[in-house]
């Protein structure tokens, strides 16, 4: 079945620094989704990427889908304490398969 590898597993950054998490698949994906889960909270849908090479922005968040549709990234510019949480990518199979997530910690 479909699997997505997500790196890094953990990331500590100083507030104001940038952060990137990567999602990789051995097979071509039809689409990829990104979710954010705050500590103690539930996953919240952020975005879906469908097209090869697609780039979408949400304020300080930039999402990219690779040209071969086998990888994706989420980049946060100038992190803030509200960005703390776990970021999951999720790939399309006959159901959504979640990556293991990247836990982002912000150091004040």
């Amino acid at each position, binding site marked *: 079945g479909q699997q997505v590898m997500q790196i890094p597993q953990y990331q500590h950054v100083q507030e104001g620094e940038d952060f990137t998490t990567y999602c990789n698949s051995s097979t071509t994906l039809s689409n990829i989704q990104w979710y954010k889960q705050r500590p103690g909270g539930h996953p919240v849908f952020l975005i879906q990427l469908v097209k090869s090479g697609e780039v979408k922005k949400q304020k300080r968040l930039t999402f990219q889908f690779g040209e071969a549709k086998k990888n994706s990234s989420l980049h946060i510019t100038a992190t803030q304490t509200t960005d703390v949480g776990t970021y999951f990518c999720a*790939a399309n199979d*006959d159901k959504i398969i979640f990556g293991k997530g990247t836990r982002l910690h912000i150091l004040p």
Partner: protein
Amino acid sequence: DTAVSQTPKYLVTQMGNDKSIKCEQNLGHDTMYWYKQDSKKFLKIMFSYNNKELIINETVPNRFSPKSPDKAHLNLHINSLELGDSAVYFCASSQGAGANYGYTFGSGTRLTVV
């Protein structure tokens, strides 16, 4: 208004007991899911129903039995609870089946088996 609501939020119970978790969505979505999130935050799908019909049944012990009385409700009954069942269980819904739609998650049920 809560879009996907789960009850209870917390559940502490002894090994061997039987318990149920309820989920309701008011989004008009056709598809509902149960996910299990372990202590390492891994999200693993358990079941999926589309318009009351079971469409995904992952490798889950028979002690877990989902029930969908209508497309707005998906309940999870667990028999003979074991220590390893301790986790956060999330209900989710989506507009359609498959992975072309974003999922809306409930706030989770934290199950602790002692």
